[in-house]
């Protein structure tokens, strides 16, 4: 059974419908990406899954119908969303951002988890008492991911983690994400424009065009698809 099952999802903003019946599933422990051009509805898909915008259709997480859940309720189901533009709390320190990330948790392992996050992102440890607003773009992205990890997520939704980062930093970030997914068993669903890069490390991919999924498959299959090669990979 899939960890996340989305079917006939429709969503939008005000009178504008962006998603027109999106269906796909995400298996536990996999790294799954949603590819597509600007305006296809990638960000909207993530926002609809985590309940940030009005939606219809069905969203099932771990077999449970969560179609009507609010974002805070989704977070308590251990679905962590790293939004577009990172959404860090700029007026809080790095450490406070991480503590906020663990907000719904009642257990006592928060401090240990913070150390684990610092293990992934040593830069954050150096800056733990600085305000998040004073971090560089790359560091803020690391903080956003670390904050999401503090929730102990089973599923992590990532919205264009590579946006605005230098290529070297992007590769570093993706290898850390891969480590998180493989070692800690966190399922990743990430949206990316940079198809070349993301298909190198994703297991499965869904291609979104004009509010619909037009192609789904393993990363290998998608990479081999002639149309995809021409439109997205530029080879």
């Amino acid at each position, binding site marked *: 059974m899939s960890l996340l099952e989305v079917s006939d999802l429709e969503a939008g903003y005000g009178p504008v419908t962006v998603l027109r019946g999106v269906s796909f599933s995400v298996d536990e422990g996999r790294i799954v990406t949603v590819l597509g051009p600007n305006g296809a509805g990638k960000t909207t898909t993530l926002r609809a899954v985590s309940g*940030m915008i009005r939606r219809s259709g069905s969203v099932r997480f771990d077999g449970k119908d969560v179609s009507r859940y*609010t974002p805070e309720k989704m977070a308590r189901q251990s679905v962590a969303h790293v939004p577009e533009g990172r*959404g860090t*709390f*700029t*007026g809080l320190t790095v450490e*406070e951002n991480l503590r906020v990330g663990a*907000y719904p948790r009642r257990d006592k392992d928060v401090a240990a988890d913070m150390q684990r996050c610092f293990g992934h992102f040593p830069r954050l440890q150096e800056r733990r008492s600085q305000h998040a607003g004073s971090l560089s773009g790359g560091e803020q992205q690391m903080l956003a991911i670390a904050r999401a990890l503090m929730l102990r997520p089973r599923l992590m939704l990532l919205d264009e983690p590579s946006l605005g980062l230098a290529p070297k930093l992007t590769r570093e970030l993706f290898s850390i994400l891969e480590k998180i997914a493989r070692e800690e068993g966190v399922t990743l669903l990430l949206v990316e424009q940079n198809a070349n890069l993301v298909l190198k490390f994703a297991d499965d991919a869904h291609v979104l065009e004009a509010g619909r999924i037009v192609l789904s498959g393993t990363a290998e299959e998608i990479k081999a698809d002639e149309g995809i090669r021409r439109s997205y990979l530029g080879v």
Partner: protein
Amino acid sequence: MERFVQVIVDGWATGSLYAALAVAVVLIYRSTGIVNFAQGELAMFSTFIAWGLIEAGVPLALALLGTLALSFAGGMLIERVIIRPVEGGEVLTLVIVTLGLYILVNSLAGWIWGFGNRSFPGLFGDSQLDVAGVGIPVESIGIVAVLIGVVGLLFAVFQRTKIGLAMRAVSLNPDSSRLVGISVGRTLMIGWGIAALVGALAGVLLAPRLFLDVNLMGGVLIYSFAAATLGGFDSPFGAVLGGWIIGIAENLAGTYVDFIGNDLKILVPLVAIVVVLLFRPTGLFGSPEVARA
């Protein structure tokens, strides 16, 4: 010299009253991100409740505790019923709503209790300490002690507790707060509740000095905004210090600058607001918006 010190001490005592309301204003701002123009009126309303309880024969301490509890609940109710529908909207909308609340609460108090003025019992008596020829009202010392206690407690809540962290997170970024599992509505309700409670405290501290009527806070509010602006709008400690500075400056100007006298004292907070906004918009202790492109 004694007169000079006495003027400072009196100004400091008055400034403590401004500070009390300023702390409530700062609190709402810190926990909800909006400036509540109705803060003073809510405090006035709470003070009337305390007065009503005392008149009805409830013992003073019990009346005060009851008032604080009612104010906390009332603040939460106002957030839920009046503020929630416009939550996350334009700043201007929120400002207009709090101005509407100002008029509503003011009229409601007049309708219930009338527009006459009443005397309110002092909490600390009328005695004065005489220190080297300078009279220090015991009441002022009591007010300052309560104020410092409240601010210290609030600081601890904001910095050390989970709900305090959640309140700060919500005021900074409501969307991200939802995504980490914070219930934004409930957090804002608690923020309004605490601010209404602190406002009520300011009201009952202040009322014995003035007369209790529906415009109890009208004059004080402008001083409190000056205090909050001077101290930095998001710093409770700044608000206290700002209140003292404004109170002392006002009294010094009124006493020693001939053309100001008693009538033009109101200029002091206005000038302070303008000067702070021009030269140091974040105030003395406010945290500037840190952002790196």
